């Protein structure tokens, strides 16, 4: 079986931009193919992660972006799973290369979230929740995660200040990331004194709304070598759906994410302790705490210590560094592109291209990308430059 590798990555600027989705994609694609043959000479299939047609009144994103890449008569489709759409697109590309169907597949993601302001994004995102009970009760993304945060603070020793410190850590990482939407440091008081959005969550607990696109080229190892590109093995891929309604899930043991991570670890032949860096889905600060536990990095109830240096965390924590990119919180969260921005960060970290934010000696990364609320769907990938065990 061919082993899929990531051979190149690219992204558009993130945040409020004057470019529609297809043009954001063109920018990301140009970076990914800088120095390579044209996409039409390389790419055999396209998957596009995209949350919602409500931002641009546009579906058929597979067809559209294949065309804008100069590809004709190739398989191309949009992949939908709210904020997990990007990693689902990556997973499809990985499977196509792994099963020998294609040598090179483009996984990309795009979202034009700023087209209708905060209310437009709030409305579009609410479509990810159960229509019959949750949507009709007026729930929103921040309030859904606030229900998780309220419960987490109730069950553990974590405080609102701990959650604030997660945002502080991710902003500090983003300050060294030239791609970040918010490349600036903040302090805990800024978080704690920011506007309440859905208590206990405040504005600075929340990832921002923003535009963005990302492109990731998945190939065989042989093709990556032929293209003279640094390569990172996609050693494991797992995906897991849980209930759509938050009320019917365990709200502090994010079991779907646990399954996705463990599946990816098993495929890669590694344990959680082997992971050097992790890009997890910190759409809200509490997510990083919950996912640190689900990924096996932290004992139950201690994930909120993710902002601390490894030596200062509770016994049983691994030495993993979380969200060196700045995470969704500060790097940015253009929904359909987010899973691919996580892969981009891991690729740059593992190939020595992460500049000032490089985590020294990092060889193995875990990516956890979620859609809906928390683990309604989770996709996990293990990326590594280590030799196969």
């Amino acid at each position: 079986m061919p082993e899929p590798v990531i051979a190149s990555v690219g992204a558009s600027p993130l945040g409020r931009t004057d470019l529609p989705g297809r043009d954001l994609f063109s920018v990301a694609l140009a970076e990914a193919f800088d120095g390579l043959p044209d996409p039409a000479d390389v790419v055999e299939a396209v998957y596009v992660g995209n949350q919602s047609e409500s931002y641009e009144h546009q579906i058929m994103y597979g067809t559209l972006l294949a065309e804008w890449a100069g590809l004709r008569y190739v398989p191309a489709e949009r992949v939908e799973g709210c904020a997990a759409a990007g990693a689902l697109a990556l997973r499809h590309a990985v499977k196509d290369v792994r099963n020998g169907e294609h040598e090179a597949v483009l996984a990309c993601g795009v979202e034009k979230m700023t087209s209708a302001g905060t209310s437009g994004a709030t409305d579009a995102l609410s479509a990810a929740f159960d229509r019959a009970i949750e949507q009709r009760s007026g729930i929103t993304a921040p309030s859904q995660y606030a229900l998780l945060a309220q419960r987490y603070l109730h069950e553990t020793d974590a405080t609102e200040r701990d959650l604030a410190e997660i945002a502080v850590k991710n902003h500090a990482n983003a300050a060294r990331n030239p791609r970040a939407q918010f490349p600036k440091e903040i302090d805990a008081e800024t978080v704690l004194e920011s506007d309440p959005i859905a208590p206990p969550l405040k504005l600075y607990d929340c990832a921002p709304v923003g535009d963005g696109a990302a492109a990731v080229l998945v190939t065989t190892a042989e093709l990556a070598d032929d293209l003279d590109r640094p390569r990172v093995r996609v050693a494991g891929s797992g995906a897991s759906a849980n209930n759509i309604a938050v009320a019917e899930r365990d709200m502090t043991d994010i079991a779907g994410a646990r399954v996705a991570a463990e599946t990816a670890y098993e495929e890669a032949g590694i344990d959680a302790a082997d992971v050097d860096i992790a890009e997890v889905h910190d759409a809200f600060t509490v997510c990083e705490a919950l996912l640190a536990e689900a990924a096996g990095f932290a004992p139950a109830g201690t994930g909120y210590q993710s902002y601390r240096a490894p030596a200062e965390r509770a016994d049983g924590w691994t030495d993993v560094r979380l969200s060196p990119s700045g995470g969704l919180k500060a790097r940015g969260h253009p929904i359909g592109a987010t899973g691919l921005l996580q892969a981009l960060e891991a690729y740059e970290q593992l190939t020595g291209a992460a500049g000032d934010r490089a985590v020294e000696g990092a060889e193995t990364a875990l990516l956890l990308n979620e859609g809906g609320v928390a683990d309604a769907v989770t996709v996990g990938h293990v990326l590594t430059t280590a030799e196969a065990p």
Partner: protein
Amino acid sequence: MTDGDLDATDPRTLPGFFDALAEGELLGGVCADCGQVLLPPRPACYACGSRAVDVEPQSREGRVFSYTEVRTPPPAFAADAPYTVAVVELADGGRLLGRVAADYADVAIGDAVELAVREPTAAEREVALDYEADWPLHVFEPR
């Protein structure tokens, strides 16, 4: 696998569930194999995969499991904000999300509440899909 005869009178469908709720009856699915409560009822149990799901009336009394306040609502509910929402654990074991008829500051985890049912307002009918227009809304009242 059976259930080929499901229609809109069956409480394992949403129209059937909401018709019963409009009459004041909260129906849950109860898995005959593992006991899991499913709100609303549905043809299969998510906990064990069984399709032996009985439909049984559920207690409308419960306790707040988690809660928050919506301050930036979806456009359809802008006039209602801020409002309190909670996940409530009902006495028969199921958990259900809904609004709470109390200010956020007056609610705490563990508070006793009771589910009440009302008809949709004119504004709610306005934003409803055609087939939802008559579906009732539930709200948890402090007890």
